[in-house]
């Protein structure tokens, strides 16, 4: 059992799966940078969370439901949870864009489900992801393999945060769309263990007066000087 101040946010799992370093920068180092993507994502969520709870025929819809599991040490919020007559529970998560290649959305939904099961003392066998571009639901079945994967990711997340570990960066194609690229500076890793040597090269200049920087077009207008 975890105490309340050991709880980790469910949303961190998504960061973890996208890039472990990104996850550590946010949740270990607590750096956070907003970019258009994260802002858009939040708007979408605000909309999903905004509406009042509704009751439509046999379904009661709860929005922005807080979730917590002391057994797993997780806390989070579900976009929508449907409570069907007869005790069936269905979590639904809204996502910008189209289905991702990785399992992050399914893992997030599964983690929510694990919390819900513990809180409601029930079993939940499926839920839905709703992708903005598709405008329809994608069913997610909570079978043994996704549950197992989710548990392993939760363990990895906890280990990383408790060890205060930030994995080193590597420039990858996905860095292009990473909201933390400007803080992560993956390119600084080019000389990871050789910055001191790089510095030596920078400062290696001799008395050569032709050693003039060329990298900057800005000039101070000295060419206006007339010979005396």
């Amino acid at each position, binding site marked *: 059992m975890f105490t309340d101040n050991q709880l980790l946010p469910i949303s961190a799992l998504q960061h973890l799966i996208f890039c472990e370093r990104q996850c550590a920068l946010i949740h270990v180092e607590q750096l956070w940078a907003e970019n258009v993507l994260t802002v858009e994502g939040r708007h979408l969520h605000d909309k999903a969370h905004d509406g009042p709870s509704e009751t439509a025929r046999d379904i009661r819809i709860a929005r922005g439901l807080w979730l917590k599991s002391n057994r797993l040490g997780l806390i989070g919020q579900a976009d929508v949870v449907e409570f069907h007559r007869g005790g069936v529970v269905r979590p639904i998560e809204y996502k910008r864009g189209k289905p991702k290649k990785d399992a992050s959305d399914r893992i997030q939904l599964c983690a929510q489900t694990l919390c819900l099961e513990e809180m409601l003392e029930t079993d939940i066998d499926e839920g839905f992801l709703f992708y903005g571009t598709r405008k329809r639901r994608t069913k997610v079945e909570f079978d043994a393999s996704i549950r197992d994967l989710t548990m392993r990711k939760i363990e990895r997340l906890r280990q990383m945060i408790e060890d205060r570990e930030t994995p*080193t960066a590597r420039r990858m194609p996905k860095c292009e769309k990473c909201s933390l690229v400007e803080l992560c500076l993956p*390119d600084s890793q080019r*000389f990871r263990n050789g910055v001191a040597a790089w510095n030596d090269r*920078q*400062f290696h200049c001799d008395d050569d007066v032709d050693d*003039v920087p060329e990298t900057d077009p800005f000039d101070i207008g000295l060419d206006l000087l007339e010979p*005396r």
Partner: protein
Amino acid sequence: MKKHLNTLFVTTEGAYLKKDGQAVVVSIEKQNRLRLPLHNLDGIVCLGNIMCSPALMGACARAGVSISFLTPYGGFIAAVNGYSPGNVLLRREQYRRADDPDSTLHIARHFVSAKIANSRSVLLRAARDSRDAESKSALQSTAKLMMRNIRAARNATTLDSLRGTEGESANTYFSVFNQMMSNRVKGMEFTFRSRRPPLDRINALLSFLYSMLTHDARSACEATGLDAAVGFLHRDRPGRPGLSLDLIEEFRAFLADRLVLSLLNRKQIQARDFDVTESGAVLLKEKPRKEVLAAYQKRKQDVITHPFLNEKTTVGLLVHLQARLLARYLRGDIDDYPPFVWR
């Protein structure tokens, strides 16, 4: 992360800044004159008697826009910054290193050697462009002298000797500052470096731009999670932004000094643009102040390749990148801090 780094400079006395949705509105005499979305801004600099609504300060704090309140001539009064990224691990590491004499010296050496190297490059660049044979050779031989200072700074064994080297090279550099000017008019000579107050026109310009740079460095530190007050070369003194001052060392000559020279050489700023008070203090008048700020802002939009990251970036982002590289070094991601050396 912000890429555009626009700074809103407000210089009109009595202007009132308020929040309108996610935008800042500047109103002068109850008339709304300007509306800018906060997400386009990196900082707001209020020079002189400017008012700011609490709602705007709150919105800026949340949006990561730092607000500085300065005297009309750039003297620091106060700043509004939101919660910086709650990076307690980074800050602890920063304090640990600042308390450790060896680490402090190691980091401080980088700031000073880069400062001297960049000043030297400014001299050499000016020498190359100079059409005056006498100035050219004076600038070149001074640059040679400064080579020695770079070596001394890199090998300094105490903070005091490092500061000594820094002072010596500053004197050497400023001794030929006039040689980098093309219109040597009476009253427009550089005499010696005077800060509080500036005693000649060039010092007035330099001090003004250095304080703009300090504002930028301060917000870069805050945005990165570093404590802008705890420096390595500049030791703790209440009210002094030590680390911001450390970080601007790499940029003084490259950015501020060259901008001053350009404004003077192109006669954008002239002797009549200053007030000389009875006490001898020299102050930039209001209209030319705007001109200087516009030139500074424009200069910050120029694109340059970052020597270490080998990535195109704007001149304005350089100080942010250096703050982040310092943070990455303190956190142990890279084995040393690569200062900005203009090559």
